[in-house]
C-alpha cells in the first residue's frame, strides 16, 4: 500500500496542518536520551508540530451547521422519521459528508482523508464510551425509584404481591442468595483454579498442555449450556433439588475456565530468576511455590479472582435453569429454591406491573453497583505492583512532609502575626483598662452623688475627694468579693 504523503509544494499555511504527532518514546530511547545527558549533551525537547487553524474551526462549524439544517429538512420533509436515534445517525452521516466536502475545497486529498478519519475515529470512540456510561446511568436512574425505600434492602417479596406499592417488599432474599451462591462457587473454584494454574506452570508436560487446551476450549462453553449440564446431571440424574447449591455448581463450571486462564497468565509472569534463586538456596518445589511464586503473583491472582467473581455474580442463564425461583428468603443452599440478583431482575421485569419493573431496575442497580465495587477493587489490587506501592509510599511521605511543612509555616505565620500584634494588644489592653477604670470611676462618683442626694452615706465609703481611677478599680473588685 502506498503511503499518502503531503505534496512537496504546499502553500505555507498547509505546511503546519497535520495534527500534532505524538511520538511514543520507547524505553530504549529514554535510556538513550539519558545516556546522552550523562555525556553532557543537550536534552532534546519535543517539537510542537502543527496545531489548530481558524480555517479548521470554520470547516467544523460549517459542517455541523449544514448537517443540522439538512437533517431537519430530510427528517421532517423528505423522509420523515421520529425519535432521537434516527435523526442523530442521519446528522452524523451528513456531518461527515459535509466536512469532507468543505475540507476538499482547501486541502489536498491526503489531508482531507486524515481529517475525516480522525473525526470518524473520535466520534465512534465517544459513542462507545457514552453508551457505556449511559447503560450504567440508565439502570441506576431507573432503579432509584425503588432504591429510595429502605425496606427494599431489608425485606423479601414473600408478603408483597405484584400490585403492592414499592413501600412493601424488597430484594434482601436475592442479595443474600447471590452472596451464598458466589461464596460456594468461590470455595470450589479458587483452590481448584489456582492449583490447576500452578500445575500447568510447575509441572509442564504433554498432559499439562492437554489440560490447558481443554480449559481453553471450555471457555467457549456458552453459559446456558453449563446450566443445562448441571440441570441434566445434578438435578435430573442425581436427584438434587433445584437449589442454591446446584446454581453454585453451574456458576463454578462457568467460572473455572476464566479463573484458570487468568491465574495461568499471572503465574507465568513470575520471573524465573526468582524461582531459580529460591531453588539455588535449597528450597524445594513446594517452598518455592509458597514463598516465591504465590507472594509474587498475589495481587494478580486477587485480580483474577475478583474479575471471575464479577462475571459469576452477573450470570443469569445458568442460574435460571438450576436455582428455581422463590419470593421468600432461603438461607439453606441445599434445600429449596434460592433466588439470586440477576434472576430476581429477570423475574421482576417479566411482569407487566410498573412497580415490579421498578423493583427489577432497583435489583439491577444493586447488582451493577456490586460489580462496579468488585471491579474497582480489582483495579486497585491490579495496580498495586511493587514499584507502584513504593511510589505510593513516597507520595504519602511527601504528602506527610508537606502537611508538616504547612503546619510549621502556619505556626510561623501565627507567631509572626503574634509578634506584630503584641504591642497592639498590649496597647489595647492598657486602653481598655483605662476605659474600664474611667467608667468605673464615673459609676462610683455618680452613685455616691446619688446616695448623697438621697441622704444615704455608707460608712465604708472613702471620702469622695480621695477616689482616683486607679484605686477605684481595686475597690470595685473588693466590693464584689
Amino acid at each position: 500500500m502506498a503511503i499518502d504523503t503531503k505534496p512537496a509544494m504546499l502553500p505555507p499555511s498547509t505546511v503546519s496542518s497535520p495534527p500534532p504527532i505524538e511520538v511514543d518514546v520507547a524505553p530504549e530511547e529514554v535510556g538513550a536520551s539519558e545516556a546522552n545527558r550523562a555525556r553532557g549533551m543537550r536534552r532534546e525537547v519535543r517539537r510542537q508540530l502543527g496545531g489548530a487553524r481558524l480555517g479548521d474551526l470554520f470547516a467544523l462549524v460549517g459542517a455541523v451547521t449544514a448537517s443540522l439544517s439538512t437533517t431537519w429538512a430530510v427528517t421532517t420533509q423528505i423522509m420523515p422519521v421520529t425519535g432521537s436515534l434516527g435523526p442523530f445517525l442521519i446528522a452524523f452521516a451528513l456531518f461527515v459528508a459535509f466536512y469532507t466536502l468543505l475540507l476538499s475545497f482547501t486541502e489536498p486529498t491526503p489531508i482531507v482523508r486524515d481529517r475525516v478519519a480522525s473525526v470518524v475515529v473520535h466520534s465512534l470512540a465517544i459513542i462507545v464510551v457514552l453508551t457505556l456510561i449511559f447503560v450504567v446511568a440508565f439502570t441506576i436512574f431507573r432503579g432509584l425509584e425503588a432504591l429510595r425505600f429502605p425496606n427494599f434492602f431489608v425485606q423479601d417479596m414473600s408478603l408483597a404481591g405484584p400490585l403492592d406499592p414499592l413501600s412493601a417488599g424488597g430484594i434482601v432474599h436475592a442479595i443474600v442468595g447471590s452472596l451464598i451462591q458466589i461464596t460456594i462457587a468461590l470455595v470450589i473454584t479458587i483452590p481448584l483454579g489456582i492449583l490447576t494454574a500452578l500445575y500447568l506452570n510447575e509441572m509442564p508436560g504433554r498432559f499439562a498442555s492437554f489440560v490447558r487446551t481443554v480449559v481453553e476450549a471450555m471457555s467457549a462453553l456458552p453459559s446456558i449450556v453449563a446450566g443445562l449440564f448441571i440441570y441434566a446431571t445434578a438435578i435430573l440424574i442425581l436427584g438434587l433439588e433445584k437449589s442454591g447449591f446446584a446454581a453454585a455448581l453451574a456458576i463454578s463450571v462457568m467460572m473455572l475456565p476464566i479463573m484458570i486462564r487468568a491465574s495461568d497468565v499471572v503465574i507465568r509472569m513470575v520471573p524465573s530468576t526468582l524461582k531459580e534463586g529460591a531453588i539455588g538456596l535449597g528450597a524445594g518445589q513446594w517452598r518455592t511455590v509458597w514463598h516465591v511464586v504465590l507472594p509474587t503473583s498475589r495481587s494478580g491472582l486477587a485480580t483474577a479472582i475478583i474479575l471471575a467473581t464479577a462475571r459469576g455474580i452477573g450470570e443469569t442463564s445458568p442460574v435460571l435453569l438450576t436455582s428455581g425461583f422463590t419470593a421468600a428468603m432461603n438461607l439453606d443452599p441445599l434445600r429449596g429454591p434460592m433466588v439470586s440478583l440477576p434472576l430476581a431482575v429477570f423475574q421482576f421485569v417479566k411482569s407487566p406491573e410498573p412497580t415490579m419493573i421498578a423493583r427489577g431496575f432497583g435489583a439491577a442497580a444493586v447488582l451493577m453497583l456490586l460489580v462496579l465495587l468488585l471491579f474497582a477493587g480489582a483495579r486497585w489490587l491490579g495496580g498495586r505492583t511493587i514499584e507502584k506501592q513504593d511510589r505510593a509510599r513516597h507520595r504519602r511521605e511527601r504528602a506527610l512532609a508537606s502537611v508538616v511543612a504547612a503546619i510549621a509555616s502556619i505556626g510561623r505565620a501565627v507567631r509572626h502575626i503574634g509578634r506584630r500584634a503584641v504591642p497592639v494588644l498590649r496597647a489595647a489592653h492598657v486602653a481598655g483598662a483605662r476605659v474600664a477604670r474611667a467608667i468605673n470611676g464615673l459609676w462610683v462618683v455618680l452613685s455616691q452623688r446619688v446616695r448623697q442626694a438621697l441622704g444615704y452615706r455608707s460608712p465604708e465609703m472613702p471620702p469622695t475627694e480621695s477616689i482616683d481611677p486607679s484605686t477605684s478599680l481595686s475597690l470595685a473588685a473588693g466590693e464584689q468579693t
Partner: protein
Amino acid sequence: MSTETRLTLRTARARPDRIFRGLALGAGISVLAIMLLVGFFLAIRATDALGTAGWSFFTEQAWEPDAGRFGIAAIIFGTVLIAVVAIAVAVPLASACALYITQYAPQRVRSTLISLVDLMAAIPSIVFGLWGFFWLQGEVVPVARWISQNFGFIPFLTVEGADPSDPLAPTTVFTSSTFIAGLVVAMMITPIITSIMREVFDQAPVGEREGALALGATRWSMIRAVVLPFGRAGMIGGSMLGLGRALGETIAVYIIISPVFVMQPRILENGAISVSSLIALRYGEATEFGLSALMAAGLTLFLMTLVVNFAASLIVARSRSGVSS
C-alpha cells in the same frame, strides 16, 4: 584421561513437594475430568435425539421434539443472523475505539479509557438486556420503520405487514426483532473485540510508525500503511472471539426477541430465535426426549463456538508470533 561414567541423577523429592505435586496433579485431573464430562455428557445425551431425527435435524425448521418434528435449521439461522448483525455493528465501533486508544488518545486518558472498556466487559448481560428492552427498543423502532420504508427494496430490510402509507400503524411489527437483539449483543461484545484489537495495535513497531510519519505521512495514512496491516490478523481474531461470544449470548436476547421457528431473514421484522434462548425458553416443560433435543441444540452451539474460538485464538497467536519473525 579417564573417561567419566555418566552420572544418573535421580530426583528424590521431599514429602511436602510430593504432597504438593500430588495435589496439583489432582486438581489438573479433576478440572480435565469436569470439562470432559460436560462435553461427553452433552454428546451422549444428544445422541438420543440425534439418532431419532437423523440428518433432518440439520434441515428441519420446526421445534416439536415430542411430535418428532424438530431441527435446528431455523434456530442456527437465527443465531447466526443475530451474531452477524452484532458483528457488523461491533467491529467498526471496536476498531475505532481501539485505534483511538492506541493512536489518538492523550497519554493521560488512555489508562482511564482502557479500564472503562474493561468495565464494560464486566457489566452483567441482564443489565444490557434491560437497557435494550426498555430504552433501545423504543428508539430503534422509528429507525427500523424509516429503513424499511426507504430501503425496503433490499430483501432482508423489508418488513411484511407494515403499511408505509399509514403513519399511525402499530409499531409492533418492528419490535422484538433480530436487529434490536443484534444491537444489544453488539454493545456486549464491543469491549472484548476492543481489548484484543488494542493489544495488537499497541504492538505495531514504533520504528515503522515513526518512519512513516518521518516520510511525511499523515496520521491516518500511517495507520493505514503500518498499524492496520500489522494488526489485521488480530482484528480478524478479535472479531471472531466476539462472534463466539455473540453466538452464546442468552439472557439479553431472550428478553428482547419473540421466538419464531422458521428461517426469517427479514432482520427488522418482529420475530427471531437463537439456540441459547431456545434452551432458556423450553427447558422447563421439556420431556426427557425434549431435553435430549435441547442438549443436541446446545452441543451444536458449543461446537460452533469452539471452532470459532479456536480459529480466533490461532489467528491471534499467529499474528503475535509473526511479528517477531
